[in-house]
């Protein structure tokens, strides 16, 4: 047993991990989801917005964190569309963000009758987040100028009534970085704009501070957060969503991979204990 554990080739671990993350995509199953208070708060904050409000959605992720941030963005966009809220996509952290966000919006929009330019807009990728946001606060159309298609945003029906950042009802940043802290600095603190976030699981522990202080109205933490959000959304708007949603498959793959890593940790420690016991016995004999 000890020899087997000690000489275990790491490629077996890799093969098991590969199997565990691919299997749930072919064998669908449903696990119970316990909704955390942080996710519930984010959901409720969007629920409280008056219809036709304007929401700024920061899509600050790239393909690297797609596994966690895409389902989060999907759930937020679905909720905004189901509630008939207008929204703008904006990317700071990575040029891929604006493209990935737009792909997702275009995929979901027809299900809710949403039209680009009328119900939603893509502001695109912008550099220098700090100074850009400072100017954005004062005059939104002047700072944004055009959407990704090159259309002046001031002429778009979706931007009706949006002059300064004070006209924006809420901001939501989906990110694997700390970009949401700039939203807190320039939008939440000076303008009291509600801010929600979707973060990768590894970034979430830092953000509990801001949920605690009320600077974040709520948070989706990792893929589990997206699954929790989906459970809340499905309960109210679309009970059939979990049956055909990819969030479920992602979440199941995540669950099994976590379990596997927990098993690896336990096995590694068992190997260490067996080795230590063997060495102790040998010392006593010798």
């Amino acid at each position, binding site marked *: 047993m000890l020899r087997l554990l000690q000489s*275990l080739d*790491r490629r077996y*671990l*890799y093969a*098991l*991990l590969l199997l565990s*993350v691919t299997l749930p995509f072919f064998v669908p199953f449903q*696990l*119970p*989801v*316990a909704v*955390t*208070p*942080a996710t519930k708060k984010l959901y409720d904050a969007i629920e409280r917005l008056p219809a036709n409000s304007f929401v700024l959605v920061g899509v600050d992720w*790239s*393909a*690297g*964190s*797609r*596994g966690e941030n895409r389902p989060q963005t999907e759930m937020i966009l679905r909720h905004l569309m189901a509630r008939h809220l207008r929204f703008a996509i904006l990317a700071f952290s990575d040029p*891929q963000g604006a*493209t*990935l966000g737009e792909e997702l919006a275009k995929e979901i929009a027809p299900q809710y009758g949403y039209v680009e330019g009328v119900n939603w807009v893509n502001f695109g990728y*912008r*550099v*220098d987040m700090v*100074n*850009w946001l*400072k*100017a*954005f*606060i*004062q*005059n939104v159309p002047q*700072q944004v*100028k055009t959407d990704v298609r090159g259309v002046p945003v001031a002429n778009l029906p979706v931007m009706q009534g949006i002059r300064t950042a004070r006209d924006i009802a809420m901001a939501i940043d989906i990110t694997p970085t700390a970009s949401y802290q700039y939203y807190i600095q320039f939008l939440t603190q000076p303008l009291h704009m509600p801010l929600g976030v979707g973060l990768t699981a590894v970034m979430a*522990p*830092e953000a*509990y*501070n801001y*949920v*605690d202080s009320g600077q974040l109205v709520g948070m989706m933490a*990792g893929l*589990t957060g997206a*699954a929790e959000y989906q459970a809340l959304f499905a309960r109210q708007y679309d009970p059939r969503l979990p049956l055909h949603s990819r969030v479920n498959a992602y*979440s*199941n793959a*995540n*669950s*099994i*991979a*976590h*379990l596997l*890593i*927990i098993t*690896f*940790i336990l096995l*590694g*420690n068992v190997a*260490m204990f067996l080795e230590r016991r063997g060495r102790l016995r040998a010392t006593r004999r010798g």
Partner: protein
Amino acid sequence: MGLWSGFFHPVHSKTLLALYIAGVLFACLVLFLVLQLIPVPARRHVIRFVTFLGGLFYALEFFLPVAKSGPHADQNVLTPYTTAFGNISQAIVGFTIGLGVINLFQVHLGRLVKRSSDAMFSLAFFLSFLAMFLVSLWHHSHPNALSRALNHILFDGLLQSLDATMFSLIAFYIASAAYRAFRVRSLEATILLVTALVVMLGQIPVGTYLTHTFPAPLRVENIRNWILTQANVAVIRAIAFGLDIGALAMSLRIWLGLERGNYFD
């Protein structure tokens, strides 16, 4: 303010835009040559002065009192200029990206010339860079079916997939490290391990399922929530205070020109 607005008004005529860009590039070239010609100590003073002015604008704009009501509510005398300063700042950031590209070219060209063992990777860099650059330029200036297809292959097919692959590889290293390195060797390591196991189990629906028959305070998702929102928050807050005080001190040093080293040499 009118003068500033005139300067930053969008230019729609292509000829005028080309003339503006050529003019700006010429002015930058002249400025660059002048900076190269003046002695190093004087150059440092110029950089310090410009840095101080930039910082002073934002500091004053933040601290000066704002009008409580009226058409200029929440604004002070400097607030209307933030858009113009934001534009200047974006242009400067654009130049820093250019500097990064120059640096990459220098490093990889050097490897190619020396024919070092990593020269193949440098060649791959140049090929990828040129392919992405030329196709993007073509696609944005004269979009057609071919440019769209090429852009799709390079950006969606290659870049995004490679990005996702690079990130996914971490999972395999974590799996290997979990087996070989996460060991109970001391009391501290044991506490860390138990906490990690609880948080990991609480993070996934399987953990919820395994403990759903337990009383509420003993359910793994509730224990995980307590760890993250109570114990973790106290520690993270302390670290954040330390980091932010350090960042404030560093910002002041840069703004006032007290920082030595790369910034001012």
